[in-house]
């Protein structure tokens, strides 16, 4: 998944980035259960390293280790960074977008290529039940998946036969996850989710979007966001401050802060991003 946006071009490499994705091998885990999150980047260039790749920041997840793999390809190089993580508490383990800052050789402009964010549900009790009904369900699911996979394979083979003589262009995105909203809509989407759910997970996601909006890198804190924003946008500064109070304030201060935050965001979005 690619979400490029203009960024600083000083000392950045020229890279054709055609894919940047973030995947987890589990969608639902138990607290303490380790799972893998993989960042995949494809560049058209032959590269030995990709030091410019910035890994996602983790919320409710502890990084147990990581492994970086480089795979030369006919049309460039694939990089895989696999994080082994575990979520300590029930709720949501979330991962901010991974990104690469590079100069787009086509335009000569500095761009930030971002993956989609990722969330994994963390539930109490066994993630995969071993009771008989669950086993039956699992068996049925496998049968259905096998049939569906067979149909898909037939379809793919047919399409491949048709396209055999044409050079295969690499798709710009290779993720199976739904595309993220464009940056312009990311704030509205995060706001909508927070208004609907009102939980800490959605507030964390909203804060992450706000920090990015302020110009801070993923994984940033309130101070980073203020530093990036400077005095450029007092309205956003106010939103950021109230979001911190809504997230970390004392119990009795959080509900009014949450209401303030929603009201401020309504005004902010109405002014900056009016719905057509």
């Amino acid at each position, binding site marked *: 998944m690619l979400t490029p946006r203009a960024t600083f071009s000083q000392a950045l490499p020229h890279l054709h980035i055609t894919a940047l994705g973030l995947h987890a091998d589990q969608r639902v885990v138990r607290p303490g259960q380790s799972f893998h999150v993989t960042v995949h980047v494809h560049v058209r260039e032959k590269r030995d390293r990709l030091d410019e790749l910035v890994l996602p920041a*983790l*919320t409710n997840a502890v990084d147990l280790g990581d492994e970086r793999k480089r795979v030369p390809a006919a049309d460039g190089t694939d990089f895989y960074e696999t994080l082994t993580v575990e979520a*300590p508490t029930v709720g949501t383990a979330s991962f901010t977008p991974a990104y690469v800052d590079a100069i787009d050789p086509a335009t000569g402009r500095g761009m930030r290529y971002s993956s989609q964010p990722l969330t994994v549900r963390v539930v109490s009790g066994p993630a995969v039940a071993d009771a008989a009904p669950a086993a039956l369900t699992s068996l049925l699911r496998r049968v259905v998946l096998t049939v569906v996979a067979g149909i898909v394979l037939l379809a793919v083979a047919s399409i491949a036969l048709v396209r055999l003589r044409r050079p295969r262009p690499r798709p710009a995105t290779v993720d199976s996850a739904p595309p993220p909203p464009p940056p312009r809509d990311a704030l509205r989407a995060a706001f909508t989710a927070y208004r609907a759910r009102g939980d800490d997970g959605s507030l*964390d996601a909203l804060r992450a979007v706000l920090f990015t909006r302020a110009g801070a890198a993923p994984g940033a*804190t*309130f101070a980073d966001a203020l530093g990036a924003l400077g005095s450029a946008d007092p309205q956003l500064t106010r939103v950021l401050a109230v979001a911190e109070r809504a*997230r*970390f*304030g*004392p119990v009795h201060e959080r509900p009014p802060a949450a209401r303030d935050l929603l009201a401020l965001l309504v005004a902010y979005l109405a002014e900056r991003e009016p719905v057509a």
Partner: protein
Amino acid sequence: MTTPQDVRDALGRTIVGQREAVDALVMGLLADGHVLLEGMPGVAKTLACRALAAAVGGQFKRVQFTPDLLPSDIVGTRIFDQRSGEFVTVRGPLFANIVLADEINRAPAKVQSALLEGMQERRATIGPDTLALPRPFAVLATMNPFDADGTYALPLAQLDRFLLSVRVGYPSRDDERAIVERFSAAAAEPEAGVATLADVERWQGEARAVHLNERVRDYAVDLVRATRGARYVASGASPRAALALAITARARAYLDGRTFVVPDDVRELAGSVLRHRVAFDYRLALDAGDADTVLAQIVASVPAP
């Protein structure tokens, strides 16, 4: 009503260009802890401590640590009063609200121990008498990172008693120019009586009540745990460091006028809280590394909530 910000501002008017040291001193006072100041001679370490004592109306005592110093020179002693024919207790400089232990590493271990026992227990024993130290009580110690010949390095366990360790660097050129302009004609006189000792005790109580969200608490714990087993680290920070980080983060939030701690409080203080609590191994010296840089990398490796 006087606030801690008033004290900070008063110190800022006396101490030019040492904002981090001034903040650390005020935070240490709010958190009821002791502060270690490391820096070259002449960077206003002593003046900062004197200014803090003057601002809060506390009694200030300075002890210059030397190799021939005795524990009784700090704690006090009993002398025979010929007129009454009895021994009387004479309290040492430890019995003050703000005690400046200048060049703490120049005195031998038993003197350091006497001071550190007072810091921990908040009382001192002179002969048969065990006396409580005044409240509030804070030890501000200085160490010169150079001139290490003839010094007695403080063991890690004793350094752990200090809530914060601050590097007091040279001021910027503009600040140094301002220092010369303001203080070359007249000596720097700290502002006195900005607050009272009762104010300080009230602030300490209010700072302890600042809300610490569990995510931020966990972040502090994770930061401390990340020092253990990290590259270049021979011995990581103790659980007391996690406690110190939480206490100081509350003080920082209170000093900023907030009722709750944010992750930035923890992150910004991590260096000052962990610097003197982490022992680095020989590989750091072999690689010509810098302890603060390693600590910064450890802090950066832990995602903030």
